[in-house]
Protein backbone atom coordinates (compact mmCIF):
# COMPACT_ATOMS: atom_id res chain seq x y z
CA UNK A 1 0.00 0.00 0.00
CA UNK A 2 1.33 3.39 -0.89
CA UNK A 3 2.40 5.55 1.96
CA UNK A 4 4.28 8.61 3.02
CA UNK A 5 7.48 9.04 4.99
CA UNK A 6 8.21 12.47 6.45
CA UNK A 7 11.84 13.18 7.33
CA UNK A 8 12.15 15.82 10.02
CA UNK A 9 15.40 17.46 11.07
CA UNK A 10 15.38 19.32 14.38
CA UNK A 11 17.75 21.14 16.71
CA UNK A 12 18.12 17.99 18.79
CA UNK A 13 17.77 15.04 16.48
CA UNK A 14 15.92 13.57 13.51
CA UNK A 15 12.44 12.11 13.49
CA UNK A 16 10.73 9.94 10.90
CA UNK A 17 6.96 10.02 10.55
CA UNK A 18 5.17 7.39 8.51
CA UNK A 19 1.61 6.89 7.39
CA UNK A 20 -0.36 4.99 4.81
CA UNK A 21 -1.86 6.90 1.91
CA UNK A 22 -4.84 8.06 3.93
CA UNK A 23 -2.43 10.22 5.93
CA UNK A 24 -4.70 10.02 8.95
CA UNK A 25 -2.55 8.17 11.50
CA UNK A 26 1.16 8.69 11.94
CA UNK A 27 3.88 6.67 13.56
CA UNK A 28 6.84 8.63 14.91
CA UNK A 29 10.33 7.20 15.27
CA UNK A 30 13.18 9.05 16.88
CA UNK A 31 15.01 10.92 18.03
CA UNK A 32 17.72 9.63 15.76
CA UNK A 33 21.11 11.20 16.58
CA UNK A 34 19.64 12.58 19.80
CA UNK A 35 21.14 15.84 20.92
CA UNK A 36 22.66 16.75 17.54
CA UNK A 37 21.47 19.43 15.13
CA UNK A 38 20.01 17.79 12.06
CA UNK A 39 19.96 20.43 9.38
CA UNK A 40 18.57 18.14 6.68
CA UNK A 41 17.48 14.59 5.90
CA UNK A 42 16.59 13.56 2.37
CA UNK A 43 15.92 10.34 0.50
CA UNK A 44 17.09 9.20 -2.90
CA UNK A 45 14.42 9.36 -5.60
CA UNK A 46 16.07 6.29 -7.15
CA UNK A 47 16.02 4.17 -4.00
CA UNK A 48 13.63 5.55 -1.37
CA UNK A 49 15.22 3.48 1.36
CA UNK A 50 18.53 5.28 0.82
CA UNK A 51 18.51 8.31 3.11
CA UNK A 52 21.19 10.88 3.83
CA UNK A 53 21.29 13.01 6.97
CA UNK A 54 23.40 16.01 7.93
CA UNK A 55 24.33 15.77 11.63
CA UNK A 56 26.36 18.44 13.37
CA UNK A 57 26.99 20.33 16.56
CA UNK A 58 29.35 22.96 17.82
CA UNK A 59 31.51 20.54 19.80
CA UNK A 60 32.20 17.74 17.39
CA UNK A 61 31.54 19.24 13.99
CA UNK A 62 29.95 17.67 10.96
CA UNK A 63 28.92 14.09 10.29
CA UNK A 64 26.99 12.56 7.43
CA UNK A 65 24.78 9.57 8.16
CA UNK A 66 23.39 7.16 5.60
CA UNK A 67 20.57 4.65 5.86
CA UNK A 68 19.68 1.86 3.45
CA UNK A 69 16.52 0.76 5.21
CA UNK A 70 14.43 3.90 5.28
CA UNK A 71 15.90 5.21 8.49
CA UNK A 72 15.63 2.12 10.70
CA UNK A 73 19.42 1.93 10.96
CA UNK A 74 22.16 4.39 10.08
CA UNK A 75 25.87 4.34 9.35
CA UNK A 76 28.21 7.33 9.52
CA UNK A 77 29.90 7.89 6.17
CA UNK A 78 32.47 10.44 5.07
CA UNK A 79 32.76 13.88 6.63
CA UNK A 80 35.84 15.19 4.87
CA UNK A 81 34.66 18.47 3.34
CA UNK A 82 37.87 20.07 2.15
CA UNK A 83 37.79 23.10 -0.12
CA UNK A 84 39.57 22.68 -3.41
CA UNK A 85 42.91 24.52 -3.41
CA UNK A 86 43.55 27.58 -1.31
CA UNK A 87 40.05 28.77 -0.35
CA UNK A 88 40.77 32.50 -0.21
CA UNK A 89 38.41 34.97 1.41
CA UNK A 90 34.89 36.32 1.20
CA UNK A 91 33.27 39.41 2.65
CA UNK A 92 32.54 39.34 6.39
CA UNK A 93 29.66 41.05 8.16
CA UNK A 94 31.72 44.20 8.71
CA UNK A 95 32.84 44.41 5.10
CA UNK A 96 36.35 43.08 5.70
CA UNK A 97 37.65 39.95 4.01
CA UNK A 98 37.37 36.68 5.95
CA UNK A 99 38.86 33.26 5.20
CA UNK A 100 36.54 30.62 3.80
CA UNK A 101 35.93 28.14 6.65
CA UNK A 102 33.85 24.98 6.54
CA UNK A 103 31.23 24.93 9.29
CA UNK A 104 28.41 22.55 8.39
CA UNK A 105 26.25 20.97 5.72
CA UNK A 106 22.93 22.74 5.32
CA UNK A 107 21.38 20.72 2.54
CA UNK A 108 21.78 17.29 0.97
CA UNK A 109 20.36 16.71 -2.50
CA UNK A 110 20.46 13.12 -3.77
CA UNK A 111 20.86 12.61 -7.50
CA UNK A 112 17.76 12.00 -9.58
CA UNK A 113 19.41 9.05 -11.33
CA UNK A 114 21.99 7.43 -9.02
CA UNK A 115 21.44 6.59 -5.36
CA UNK A 116 25.18 6.83 -4.63
CA UNK A 117 25.49 10.37 -5.98
CA UNK A 118 24.52 13.15 -3.62
CA UNK A 119 25.23 16.89 -3.48
CA UNK A 120 25.93 18.84 -0.30
CA UNK A 121 25.45 22.57 0.16
CA UNK A 122 27.72 23.83 2.91
CA UNK A 123 28.64 26.84 5.04
CA UNK A 124 30.87 28.72 4.16
CA UNK A 125 29.14 28.54 0.82
CA UNK A 126 30.30 25.80 -1.50
CA UNK A 127 28.88 22.81 -3.32
CA UNK A 128 30.28 19.31 -2.79
CA UNK A 129 29.41 16.06 -4.54
CA UNK A 130 29.86 12.44 -3.55
CA UNK A 131 29.59 9.62 -6.08
CA UNK A 132 30.19 6.82 -3.59
CA UNK A 133 27.23 7.10 -1.28
CA UNK A 134 28.73 9.83 0.87
CA UNK A 135 32.02 8.08 1.66
CA UNK A 136 34.12 10.79 -0.02
CA UNK A 137 33.31 14.34 -1.08
CA UNK A 138 34.75 16.54 -3.79
CA UNK A 139 34.08 20.24 -4.15
CA UNK A 140 32.61 21.55 -7.39
CA UNK A 141 34.86 24.53 -6.91
CA UNK A 142 33.91 26.47 -10.02
CA UNK A 143 31.05 27.90 -7.99
CA UNK A 144 33.09 29.21 -5.06
CA UNK A 145 35.80 30.35 -7.44
CA UNK A 146 33.37 32.47 -9.45
CA UNK A 147 34.83 35.95 -9.85
CA UNK A 148 32.14 37.31 -7.54
CA UNK A 149 33.15 34.95 -4.69
CA UNK A 150 35.20 37.48 -2.69
CA UNK A 151 32.14 39.76 -2.57
CA UNK A 152 29.78 37.17 -1.13
CA UNK A 153 28.76 37.86 2.45
CA UNK A 154 26.96 35.87 5.14
CA UNK A 155 23.32 36.29 5.99
CA UNK A 156 22.29 36.27 9.62
CA UNK A 157 22.44 32.47 9.69
CA UNK A 158 25.88 32.27 8.12
CA UNK A 159 27.11 32.17 4.54
CA UNK A 160 25.34 29.02 3.54
CA UNK A 161 24.55 27.24 0.33
CA UNK A 162 21.10 26.08 1.32
CA UNK A 163 19.24 25.24 -1.88
CA UNK A 164 20.16 22.74 -4.60
CA UNK A 165 17.76 21.99 -7.45
CA UNK A 166 18.52 19.42 -10.13
CA UNK A 167 16.84 19.77 -13.51
CA UNK A 168 15.08 16.47 -14.30
CA UNK A 169 15.08 17.21 -18.03
CA UNK A 170 18.71 18.25 -18.28
CA UNK A 171 21.29 16.35 -16.18
CA UNK A 172 23.87 19.07 -16.78
CA UNK A 173 21.75 21.83 -15.22
CA UNK A 174 21.94 22.61 -11.50
CA UNK A 175 20.49 25.57 -9.61
CA UNK A 176 21.80 26.64 -6.21
CA UNK A 177 21.08 29.51 -3.84
CA UNK A 178 23.37 31.13 -1.30
CA UNK A 179 22.68 33.57 1.52
CA UNK A 180 23.65 36.27 0.83
CA UNK A 181 25.07 35.93 -2.63
CA UNK A 182 22.00 34.91 -4.63
CA UNK A 183 21.07 32.23 -7.11
CA UNK A 184 23.46 30.55 -9.52
CA UNK A 185 23.07 28.11 -12.39
CA UNK A 186 25.41 25.61 -13.96
CA UNK A 187 24.76 24.18 -17.41
CA UNK A 188 27.75 21.84 -17.39
CA UNK A 189 27.05 19.62 -14.36
CA UNK A 190 28.65 21.97 -11.88
CA UNK A 191 31.93 22.86 -13.55
CA UNK A 192 31.11 26.51 -14.30
CA UNK A 193 28.44 28.79 -12.90
CA UNK A 194 26.68 32.02 -13.66
CA UNK A 195 24.72 34.25 -11.30
CA UNK A 196 21.01 34.33 -12.15
CA UNK A 197 19.78 37.32 -10.18
CA UNK A 198 18.63 39.79 -12.84
CA UNK A 199 15.35 41.34 -11.78
CA UNK A 200 16.00 41.01 -8.05
CA UNK A 201 16.09 44.17 -5.94
CA UNK A 202 17.33 44.16 -2.35
CA UNK A 203 17.36 47.21 -0.11
CA UNK A 204 20.09 45.93 2.19
CA UNK A 205 22.91 46.17 -0.34
CA UNK A 206 24.60 49.23 -1.83
CA UNK A 207 23.60 48.46 -5.42
CA UNK A 208 20.03 47.25 -5.10
CA UNK A 209 20.00 45.35 -8.40
CA UNK A 210 23.57 44.06 -8.23
CA UNK A 211 24.57 40.86 -10.01
CA UNK A 212 25.24 39.18 -6.65
CA UNK A 213 24.64 39.97 -2.99
CA UNK A 214 20.94 39.11 -2.70
CA UNK A 215 19.70 37.09 0.26
CA UNK A 216 17.79 34.40 -1.57
CA UNK A 217 16.03 32.20 0.98
CA UNK A 218 14.78 29.38 -1.22
CA UNK A 219 14.00 28.47 -4.82
CA UNK A 220 11.85 25.69 -6.19
CA UNK A 221 10.60 24.30 -9.47
CA UNK A 222 8.09 21.81 -10.78
CA UNK A 223 9.73 18.83 -12.47
CA UNK A 224 7.48 19.12 -15.52
CA UNK A 225 8.55 22.73 -16.16
CA UNK A 226 12.08 23.13 -14.85
CA UNK A 227 12.59 26.49 -16.59
CA UNK A 228 9.95 28.04 -14.34
CA UNK A 229 11.51 28.93 -11.01
CA UNK A 230 9.87 30.33 -7.90
CA UNK A 231 11.88 32.16 -5.25
CA UNK A 232 11.30 33.31 -1.70
CA UNK A 233 13.82 36.08 -1.24
CA UNK A 234 14.56 37.74 2.10
CA UNK A 235 11.81 40.13 1.07
CA UNK A 236 9.83 39.47 -2.13
CA UNK A 237 8.41 36.36 -3.76
CA UNK A 238 9.81 36.11 -7.28
CA UNK A 239 9.28 34.10 -10.44
CA UNK A 240 11.38 33.38 -13.50
CA UNK A 241 10.06 31.80 -16.68
CA UNK A 242 13.47 31.36 -18.29
CA UNK A 243 15.61 29.35 -15.86
CA UNK A 244 16.61 32.39 -13.88
CA UNK A 245 17.66 34.68 -16.73
CA UNK A 246 15.15 37.25 -15.50
CA UNK A 247 12.96 37.41 -12.41
CA UNK A 248 9.79 39.35 -11.71
CA UNK A 249 8.00 39.89 -8.44
CA UNK A 250 4.81 37.92 -7.71
CA UNK A 251 4.27 38.92 -4.07
CA UNK A 252 0.85 40.37 -4.98
CA UNK A 253 -1.54 40.53 -2.04
CA UNK A 254 0.58 38.67 0.52
CA UNK A 255 0.35 40.22 4.01
CA UNK A 256 4.14 40.11 4.13
CA UNK A 257 6.49 39.01 1.38
CA UNK A 258 9.22 38.11 3.86
CA UNK A 259 9.59 34.42 4.53
CA UNK A 260 11.82 31.42 4.15
CA UNK A 261 10.33 28.42 2.30
CA UNK A 262 8.50 28.12 -0.99
CA UNK A 263 7.01 24.97 -2.52
CA UNK A 264 5.11 23.96 -5.62
CA UNK A 265 2.16 21.56 -5.76
CA UNK A 266 3.07 18.08 -7.01
CA UNK A 267 0.44 18.02 -9.78
CA UNK A 268 -0.30 21.70 -10.48
CA UNK A 269 2.80 23.58 -11.67
CA UNK A 270 1.12 26.96 -11.19
CA UNK A 271 0.07 26.27 -7.60
CA UNK A 272 2.66 27.48 -5.11
CA UNK A 273 2.88 27.89 -1.35
CA UNK A 274 4.66 30.29 0.99
CA UNK A 275 4.49 30.99 4.72
CA UNK A 276 4.59 34.77 5.26
CA UNK A 277 6.67 35.97 8.19
CA UNK A 278 6.30 39.47 9.60
CA UNK A 279 9.80 40.78 8.98
CA UNK A 280 13.52 40.08 9.12
CA UNK A 281 13.62 41.30 12.71
CA UNK A 282 10.37 39.66 13.81
CA UNK A 283 10.57 36.05 12.73
CA UNK A 284 6.96 35.12 13.38
CA UNK A 285 3.70 35.21 11.42
CA UNK A 286 1.90 38.54 10.98
CA UNK A 287 -0.78 39.17 13.63
CA UNK A 288 0.09 35.95 15.47
CA UNK A 289 -1.81 33.94 12.82
CA UNK A 290 -0.08 30.97 11.25
CA UNK A 291 -1.18 31.09 7.62
CA UNK A 292 0.11 29.25 4.60
CA UNK A 293 -0.61 31.24 1.46
CA UNK A 294 -1.46 29.47 -1.78
CA UNK A 295 -1.46 30.91 -5.27
CA UNK A 296 -3.11 28.89 -8.02
CA UNK A 297 -1.93 31.39 -10.62
CA UNK A 298 1.81 31.07 -10.22
CA UNK A 299 1.93 34.10 -7.96
CA UNK A 300 0.38 37.55 -7.50
CA UNK A 301 -3.02 36.27 -6.37
CA UNK A 302 -2.77 34.57 -2.99
CA UNK A 303 -5.30 33.03 -0.62
CA UNK A 304 -4.71 32.35 3.07
CA UNK A 305 -5.00 28.73 4.22
CA UNK A 306 -6.00 28.73 7.87
CA UNK A 307 -8.28 25.77 8.53
CA UNK A 308 -6.67 23.85 11.38
CA UNK A 309 -3.77 26.27 11.90
CA UNK A 310 -3.54 28.46 15.02
CA UNK A 311 -5.09 31.86 14.33
CA UNK A 312 -4.13 33.64 17.50
CA UNK A 313 -1.05 34.03 19.67
CA UNK A 314 1.16 32.01 17.34
CA UNK A 315 4.75 33.21 17.11
CA UNK A 316 6.66 30.36 15.51
CA UNK A 317 8.90 30.50 12.46
CA UNK A 318 9.10 28.15 9.48
CA UNK A 319 12.58 27.71 8.05
CA UNK A 320 13.58 27.46 4.40
CA UNK A 321 13.85 23.67 4.19
CA UNK A 322 10.82 23.00 6.38
CA UNK A 323 8.06 22.99 3.73
CA UNK A 324 7.53 20.01 1.43
CA UNK A 325 4.89 18.17 -0.58
CA UNK A 326 4.01 14.56 -1.28
CA UNK A 327 2.93 13.17 -4.64
CA UNK A 328 -0.35 11.58 -3.67
CA UNK A 329 -3.70 12.69 -4.99
CA UNK A 330 -4.69 15.07 -3.47
CA UNK A 331 -1.26 16.52 -2.91
CA UNK A 332 -0.13 16.58 0.70
CA UNK A 333 1.58 19.68 2.08
CA UNK A 334 3.80 19.55 5.18
CA UNK A 335 5.69 22.11 7.22
CA UNK A 336 7.55 22.21 10.51
CA UNK A 337 7.85 25.08 12.96
CA UNK A 338 10.35 26.46 15.41
CA UNK A 339 7.82 25.42 18.06
CA UNK A 340 8.26 21.76 17.23
CA UNK A 341 5.01 21.11 15.38
CA UNK A 342 4.77 19.44 12.00
CA UNK A 343 1.51 20.36 10.29
CA UNK A 344 0.13 18.43 7.35
CA UNK A 345 -2.63 18.87 4.85
CA UNK A 346 -3.89 15.91 2.82
CA UNK A 347 -6.01 18.16 0.58
CA UNK A 348 -3.57 20.56 -1.04
CA UNK A 349 -3.74 22.96 1.85
CA UNK A 350 -7.48 23.30 2.40
CA UNK A 351 -7.29 21.83 5.90
CA UNK A 352 -4.46 21.19 8.31
CA UNK A 353 -3.66 19.23 11.45
CA UNK A 354 -0.49 18.67 13.43
CA UNK A 355 0.87 15.20 12.77
CA UNK A 356 3.36 15.60 15.59
CA UNK A 357 3.86 18.38 18.10
CA UNK A 358 6.34 19.26 20.83
CA UNK A 359 9.42 18.16 18.92
CA UNK A 360 12.56 20.25 19.23
CA UNK A 361 12.61 23.23 16.88
CA UNK A 362 12.15 21.94 13.34
CA UNK A 363 14.87 22.81 10.86
CA UNK A 364 13.82 20.76 7.84
CA UNK A 365 10.99 18.66 6.51
CA UNK A 366 11.24 16.39 3.49
CA UNK A 367 8.58 13.99 2.24
CA UNK A 368 8.88 10.70 0.42
CA UNK A 369 5.92 9.17 -1.38
CA UNK A 370 6.40 5.43 -1.11
CA UNK A 371 5.15 2.90 -3.66
Amino acid at each position, binding site marked *: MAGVRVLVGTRKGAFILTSDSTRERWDVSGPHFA*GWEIYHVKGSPVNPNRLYASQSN*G*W*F*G*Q*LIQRSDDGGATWEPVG*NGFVYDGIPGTHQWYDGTQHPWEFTRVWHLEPSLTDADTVYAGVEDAALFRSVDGGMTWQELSGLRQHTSGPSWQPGAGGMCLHTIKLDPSNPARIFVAISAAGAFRSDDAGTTWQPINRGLRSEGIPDQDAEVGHCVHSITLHPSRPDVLFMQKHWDVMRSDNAGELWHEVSGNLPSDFGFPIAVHAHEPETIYVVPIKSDSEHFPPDGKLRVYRSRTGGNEWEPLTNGLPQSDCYVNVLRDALAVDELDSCGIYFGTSGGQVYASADSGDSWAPIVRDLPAVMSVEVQTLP
Partner: protein
Amino acid sequence: MIRVLLPAHLRTLARLKGELELQVEAPITQRSVLDALEASYPMLRGTIRDQVTQQRRAFVRFFACEQDLSHEPPDAPLPDAVAAGTEPFLIVGAIAGG
Protein backbone atom coordinates in the same frame (compact mmCIF):
# COMPACT_ATOMS: atom_id res chain seq x y z
CA MET B 1 46.96 -0.62 26.87
CA ILE B 2 45.92 3.01 26.82
CA ARG B 3 42.59 3.78 28.43
CA VAL B 4 40.46 6.47 26.76
CA LEU B 5 37.15 7.91 27.88
CA LEU B 6 35.08 9.65 25.21
CA PRO B 7 32.26 12.15 25.78
CA ALA B 8 28.76 10.71 25.60
CA HIS B 9 27.97 11.87 22.05
CA LEU B 10 31.12 10.27 20.69
CA ARG B 11 30.56 7.03 22.65
CA THR B 12 27.16 6.83 20.99
CA LEU B 13 28.67 7.54 17.59
CA ALA B 14 31.34 4.86 18.08
CA ARG B 15 28.81 2.48 19.67
CA LEU B 16 30.80 2.19 22.86
CA LYS B 17 29.89 2.00 26.50
CA GLY B 18 32.31 3.24 29.11
CA GLU B 19 36.04 3.41 28.58
CA LEU B 20 37.83 1.91 25.63
CA GLU B 21 41.31 0.46 25.50
CA LEU B 22 43.76 1.01 22.69
CA GLN B 23 47.02 -0.61 21.72
CA VAL B 24 49.28 2.35 20.98
CA GLU B 25 52.88 2.23 19.82
CA ALA B 26 55.31 4.36 21.84
CA PRO B 27 55.79 7.23 22.22
CA ILE B 28 52.47 7.78 23.96
CA THR B 29 51.36 11.27 22.97
CA GLN B 30 48.12 13.03 22.13
CA ARG B 31 48.86 12.46 18.47
CA SER B 32 49.67 8.76 18.76
CA VAL B 33 46.62 8.10 20.93
CA LEU B 34 44.31 10.02 18.59
CA ASP B 35 45.84 8.34 15.54
CA ALA B 36 45.17 4.92 17.09
CA LEU B 37 41.69 5.97 18.17
CA GLU B 38 40.72 7.17 14.69
CA ALA B 39 42.22 4.07 13.08
CA SER B 40 40.07 1.85 15.27
CA TYR B 41 36.98 4.06 15.08
CA PRO B 42 37.01 5.88 11.72
CA MET B 43 33.64 7.49 12.41
CA LEU B 44 35.41 9.70 14.95
CA ARG B 45 37.58 11.36 12.31
CA GLY B 46 36.95 15.08 12.32
CA THR B 47 35.00 15.06 15.58
CA ILE B 48 37.95 15.59 17.93
CA ARG B 49 40.47 17.32 15.68
CA ASP B 50 40.25 18.90 12.26
CA GLN B 51 40.87 16.39 9.49
CA VAL B 52 43.20 18.70 7.59
CA THR B 53 44.99 20.81 10.18
CA GLN B 54 44.89 18.16 12.95
CA GLN B 55 44.08 20.99 15.36
CA ARG B 56 41.94 20.12 18.37
CA ARG B 57 38.38 21.30 17.87
CA ALA B 58 37.77 24.40 19.95
CA PHE B 59 35.15 22.90 22.27
CA VAL B 60 37.04 19.67 22.92
CA ARG B 61 39.46 19.37 25.85
CA PHE B 62 41.99 16.73 26.88
CA PHE B 63 42.34 15.91 30.59
CA ALA B 64 44.38 13.29 32.46
CA CYS B 65 45.70 12.86 35.98
CA GLU B 66 43.72 15.92 37.09
CA GLN B 67 45.55 18.09 34.57
CA ASP B 68 44.27 20.00 31.55
CA LEU B 69 46.52 18.86 28.71
CA SER B 70 44.53 20.60 25.98
CA HIS B 71 47.24 23.11 25.19
CA GLU B 72 50.17 20.71 25.39
CA PRO B 73 51.97 20.08 22.08
CA PRO B 74 50.46 17.08 20.28
CA ASP B 75 53.78 15.26 20.32
CA ALA B 76 54.54 15.85 24.02
CA PRO B 77 54.58 12.64 26.08
CA LEU B 78 51.39 12.00 28.02
CA PRO B 79 51.73 11.39 31.79
CA ASP B 80 53.36 8.10 32.79
CA ALA B 81 50.15 6.94 34.42
CA VAL B 82 48.33 7.25 31.07
CA ALA B 83 51.12 5.42 29.27
CA ALA B 84 51.04 2.69 31.94
CA GLY B 85 47.27 2.36 31.68
CA THR B 86 46.61 3.22 35.29
CA GLU B 87 44.86 6.48 34.42
CA PRO B 88 42.55 7.19 31.47
CA PHE B 89 43.03 9.87 28.83
CA LEU B 90 39.85 11.91 29.01
CA ILE B 91 38.39 13.54 25.89
CA VAL B 92 35.85 16.05 27.11
CA GLY B 93 33.25 18.25 25.46
CA ALA B 94 33.54 21.72 26.93
CA ILE B 95 30.73 22.69 29.27
CA ALA B 96 28.44 25.04 27.35
CA GLY B 97 24.75 25.54 26.81
CA GLY B 98 22.99 23.89 23.95
